Every structure is written in C-alpha cells, then in structure tokens.
C-alpha cells in the first residue's frame, strides 16, 4: 500500500512540528478526491505508526474535498469524479494527482491548461496535541 508512505509523511510532519508530543488529541485530515484515498487506509496507518512511536491517538476526522478545476484559457469551472474514470486513470491519479492533465480537458474549450483549485490530495487540516 502506498498509503503507508502517505501516512508516514503525515506522522513525520506532525512529530517534527510538535517536538515529540505524547498525544495527538484531535487530527483532521483533508482528502482531495482526485487522489481517491480511502480514509480507513490512512487512519489504519496513522494509528499504527503513531502508536509505534509512542504517541497516543484520539479522534481522527476525515474531510473529503470535492475536485474543483478552473480553466486558464476560458475561465470555466467544473468538477470531476475519479470514481467514474477508467480504472487505470483512477490509479494514475491515485499515485500522482497531476496526471489529471494528461487525461482531462476543459469541457468548455478543450484546453489542458487548467488549475486544480481544490481536491488534489492529502493534507493536514487541523491538529490538537496534548
């Protein structure tokens, strides 16, 4: 599972910024839908990895972010649901969300030159340490 690597990065970031805390009381993780990451997988690894490092874990909350794309050519804004993409393309974007630019075009003008405004991938929303 490459989710192990994603979770480990979060754990390393949390611990580096808090200077080896004893407990993560509350953690909010934002999951951009473009990356199709299952919250259960990330949660499993977050708990496992934090506990291995002697850190207690309280509530872990996940917020799924819809994908918002905005065309630089014509200004059009639209969304995209990777669960409707071909299996292979969903997998490419699961590993590397930027792959979206190889497969999708602006539905209004056809351009590949658009911005992923929201919903790209995994990041830390909020965290409360004890």
């Amino acid at each position, binding site marked *: 599972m490459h989710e192990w690597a994603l979770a480990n990065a979060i754990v390393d*970031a949390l611990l580096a910024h808090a200077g080896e805390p004893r407990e993560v009381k509350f953690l909010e993780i934002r999951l951009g839908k473009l990356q199709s990451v299952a919250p259960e997988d990330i949660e499993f690894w977050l708990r496992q990895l934090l506990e291995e490092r002697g850190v207690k874990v309280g509530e872990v909350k996940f917020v799924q972010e819809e994908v918002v794309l905005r065309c630089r050519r014509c200004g059009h804004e639209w969304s995209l649901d990777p669960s409707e993409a071909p299996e292979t393309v969903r997998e*490419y974007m699961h590993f590397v969300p930027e792959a979206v630019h190889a497969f999708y075009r602006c539905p209004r003008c056809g351009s590949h030159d658009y911005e992923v405004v929201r919903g790209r991938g995994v990041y830390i929303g909020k965290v409360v340490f004890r």
Partner: protein
Amino acid sequence: MDPRVHGIRRMLSGIRRIWVVLSPKGGVGKTLVSVCTAIGLAREGRTVGLLDADVTNPTAHIPLGVDPRGVELREEEGVVPVRAKGVLFMSPVFFTEDRALPLRGWEISSILRELLAITNWGRLDCLVVDTPPGLADETLELLLLLPRKEAILVSTPSPMASTSARRMEEFLRDEGIPLLAHIENMSPRGIPYYPNLDAEIGHIEGTEFCRKVSEIIRSVQND
C-alpha cells in the same frame, strides 16, 4: 506544512549518494548520460536508482528499454520502482500512458514532491536524477528537496551549449552544490560524437558511448 517534505526525507534516507544530471541547454545528452551512468554503476555491482525528473517530457525510459504501457507498479511501503538493465527506475511516464503532460510551475514542484514521497527506493549506493533543460521549477525544486546532492553538468562544444553551461556553473557555485563532473559531450575533449548513436539507443548498454560515460564517472566518483 507540506507533509511530503518530511516523507521525502524518510524515503531518501537509505540512499548514500545523489547525482543530479544537469544542463540548461537541451539535447546535450543529459538523458543518455544519466541512463549510462546508472547502467555503469549497476554493472559494477552497485545498487542504483534512476529518477526521470523531466516531468513534462520524460524520455529516459526509451534508452532504458522500458515500455511504459507494459508497466504495472507494485505497492510496498510506497511504490516500488521498476527494474530495467539492472537499474531501479521511476518515471512520470508510468502515470500518463505516454501522453503529453502540460504542467505549470507549482504542479511541476508538486509532482516531484509526490514521486519522491512515495517511491520506495530501499537502500541505494546511488540515485541518479535526470533533469529537463532550463533553470526552472524542476531543477530548483530538486535542489531544494534532495539531500547529499552532487551535480553532473553536461555540455557540448556548441557556443549555445557552452554559454548555457557557464551560466549553470556560476549558479551551482552560488547555491553551494558540489560539481562532481562537467562532461563535454559530442566532443574530442570528452565523449566523442558517435554518428550512429540514435540507431543504437535500444541497446545503449552495449555502446562505446555508454562505456565512455562509465569510464568518466568511475574516474571522478571517488569511492
């Protein structure tokens, strides 16, 4: 706080040396030098990785003989690179079905962060990084993210390439990046011009070009 910056440190922690193959001028042989450097090290029994960081136009898979459409990536504590000609290889081409991948600067930095944060290289004696021409996000982001990096500069005798190389040398000195080697390609003073090289790209490991690259690298690598 981008967690990937932390993930990258972990994922690169088993790598002893990192060589970034650079030149602001295109077409001087960066990709072939990268591939042959990696092949040469592998033949000497080193464990070696190759990352194609030319994200909007990756081509290192071509001399490595990897058909991107045939690749199925395996997940194991990250994504496992593909083995080819003895080299562990990762490229953005594995995620595009070899289509055009037009990206703006921040997206280029972001895709490099993602690839570095998820690729499980394991223990390597050396990671070779092939870069695109120019002096923009790919190069700047790599120099920012990669630890223990040394530069291999490639140029040719063309006045356009040598001007470009001079600018890059000044830049590397300012940034404090050690220059492992400056290879003059297609030149009697470095690697000669081989008129039939294009026809031999499919079996680059058997060429005089590849032997010559390995020889130069061996003479400078000091270990």
